[in-house]
């Protein structure tokens, strides 16, 4: 629409400053994690443009709003136009700017930006976009001529023992992971992208997360999940480039050239049976994890980050089963959040872990790990997987480019 275009031009006019600043971070574009992203609370901004999308290896923020969309048009051009507009909006929002005019536009027109983030700092907002299997092939229908470009690694996840997935919490053609230190900033971002997308995409499901459960900055203490435990203490660090290249970033050699520098996201809504867990003895709780609840040290280790003497842990403990050494060195980058969506109508807390993991190939990483865990993990008594999604997150956006350009450009 013309009106919107006008405001967009205005927007790019002034946000150019931010974009230039992002580019000035220079080397940061090569290794995003080295850029100055500010600490929680300082409200800094994370560079939007770069070799990799932010929101993967960059430091984990406190809050999440994750949304999965269905594409509701078969018109590829409209989809591309929307991704371009999303990119312009993403650059503005992550810089702490409204997208277009939030107040002071034409009085007859609704404001471009919904306005609830006005006056708030960028809060390290990152927006990470991914493409689901159904974008490439929806029940045999190749809506956008992308079927042949579907990466082999972008599989339909198999059924795992114990899965109780609901369709309206699973799947989707496109996902956006919005992370920020202020929930209002993350919600604002998803709300405005959804609004821009009306007619092209429709929200299929979305999830709010309030407490990060993993860290990509190993000097920090590992946050606790809703079980009250630290988990994923040996997460891949955002500055461990060798590990990122080996386990997280897809390579052109992997098959799909357009995914080089991208990563595969697996999301699982894992409901925890909070009430039964809370009635469980400390010993059993610790046995389930194979670590102490207080310090977070594994059985047989002294401190949280000490090496884990696997043999000292119960055979069915979560830490032992999920440990790289039990899985031929397989690692994933975890970036999950706790969630509580009120109660479930039976008076039970509807809470758990919104698990997010990034990896180079879900077939050899998440699927292998989850098959192992779903079969034998003692923790399964207390959790149930109720939502699921897998998405191919393309590489980072270059200035002047757009999300998914290598695929759709």
């Amino acid at each position: 629409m013309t009106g919107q275009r006008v405001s967009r031009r205005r927007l790019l006019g002034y946000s150019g400053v931010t974009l230039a600043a992002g580019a000035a971070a220079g080397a940061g574009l090569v290794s995003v994690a080295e850029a100055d992203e500010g600490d929680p609370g300082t409200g800094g901004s994370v560079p939007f443009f770069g070799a990799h999308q932010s929101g993967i290896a960059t430091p984990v923020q406190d809050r999440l709003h994750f949304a999965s969309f269905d594409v509701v048009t078969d018109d590829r051009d409209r989809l591309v136009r929307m991704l371009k507009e999303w990119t312009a909006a993403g650059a503005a929002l992550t810089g702490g700017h409204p997208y277009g005019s939030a107040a002071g536009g034409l009085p007859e027109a609704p404001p471009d930006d919904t306005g609830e983030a006005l006056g708030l700092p960028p809060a390290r907002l990152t927006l990470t976009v991914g493409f689901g299997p159904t974008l490439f092939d929806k029940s045999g229908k190749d809506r956008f001529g992308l079927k042949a470009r579907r990466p082999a690694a972008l599989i339909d996840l198999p059924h795992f023992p114990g899965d109780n997935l609901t369709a309206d919490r699973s799947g989707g053609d496109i996902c956006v992971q919005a992370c920020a230190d202020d929930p209002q900033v993350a919600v604002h971002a998803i709300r405005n992208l959804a609004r821009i997308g009306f007619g092209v995409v429709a929200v299929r499901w979305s999830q709010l997360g309030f407490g990060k459960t993993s860290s990509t900055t190993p000097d920090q203490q590992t946050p606790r999940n809703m079980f009250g435990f630290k988990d994923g203490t040996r997460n891949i660090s955002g500055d461990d480039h060798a590990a990122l290249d080996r386990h997280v970033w897809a390579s052109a050699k992997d098959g799909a050239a357009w995914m080089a520098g991208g990563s595969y996201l697996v999301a699982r809504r894992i409901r925890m049976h909070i009430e039964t867990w809370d009635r469980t003895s400390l010993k059993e709780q610790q046995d389930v994890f194979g670590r102490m609840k207080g310090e977070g040290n594994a059985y047989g280790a002294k401190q949280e980050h000490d090496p884990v003497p696997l043999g000292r842990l119960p055979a069915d403990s979560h830490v032992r089963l999920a440990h790289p050494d039990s899985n031929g060195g397989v690692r994933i980058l975890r970036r999950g959040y706790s969630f509580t969506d009120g109660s479930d109508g039976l008076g039970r807390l509807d809470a758990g872990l919104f698990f997010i993991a990034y990896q180079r190939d879900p077939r050899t990483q998440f699927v292998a790990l989850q098959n192992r865990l779903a079969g034998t993990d003692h923790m399964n008594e207390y959790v149930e997987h109720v939502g699921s999604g897998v998405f191919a997150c393309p590489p980072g956006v270059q200035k002047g480019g757009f999300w998914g350009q290598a695929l759709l450009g």
Partner: protein
Amino acid sequence: MRPAHLFATTGAVLISLSVLSACGKDDDTAAGKDAAIKVTATDSSCEVGAKSGAAGATTFKVTNKGSQVNELEVLAPDGKIVSERENIGPGTGTEVTVTLNAGTYKILCSAGMTGKGPSQTFTVTGQGKAADPRLDQAVAAYRIYVGEQVDDTLAKAKTFAASVKKGDAAGAKAEFAPSRLGWETTEPVAESFGDIDPKVDLREADLKKGDTWTGWHQIEKALWKTKSLKDEGPYADQLIKDLETLKVRVGTASITATSMANGAKELLDEVATGKITGEEDTFSHTDLSDFKGNVDGAQKAFELLKPVVQEKDAELSTELTDEFAKVQKLLTKYEKGDGYVSYDTVGKAERKELSDEVNALGEPLSKLAAAVAK
């Protein structure tokens, strides 16, 4: 309709009507660029910083220096509310922008938000630039359409009322939804007469203790829920009386191109908030018929404005054309006989599909008024 909505909507409609009435003339007038006119409200006074102004967009900057919550109303020469702003707390202020034609207005402050209070007159003179004649044509054609729709709804409501009074429940049930269709196509215009809408279209959930409930939905409940028509005769008569009042008044409605556009958007809002959820016709489940009426009314307004929109924003025009076609196509899936399937048979996934399409149309439709006003 729903009353919480009524005030908001009515306010919005009236603002838009007035914006419309000056549409095409407001952009460049001196008044439009004038500084805001200060209004100081107290619990007992209403001081307006100017006695007159030029036609066009006018901004009142109101400050509440009293101890009670206040409300600012801009009243047209005929006494109708052109714009209002409620809930101005003590010590706070706000701005109200409204487009005014030549005439003598009243600026009223109402401490305690009773709708009454001290006022001052405000005289508007002059005229903005000449309106686009195509917009005048669109408004004229829309007036005819609105008149026809009101006639249609009145005629069908009479048949419906007759069946109700005869105690013919089967006949009345079949006639209920068709009798509402014309009303639903033109609801924003009807709502601009603030008193008719609550009389004919109030839902049970909108009532507060002590309210008298009249109108279609009162009879709807008697037909589908309590299944007794013995007390319904007076309600049937009242419905016809109120619709006859609408018919008399509708010719005097202030309609402009902008108010048509805003009305179209509001019709989609009605769909999005009331019909998609099945709240509108909670006993009869004839929501899809009302849905169709709302969409048809919005589409009519758009099509009449389309020649101008196409020129001012071709992309918007194409998008709206496509989305209207998609909604209409989707609705055909649910056709049954002369009407639609009962909404309680429409599943969650199908309702979501309808909701997604309403959003897909509603978003570009919200840009129509600005495109017309440009």
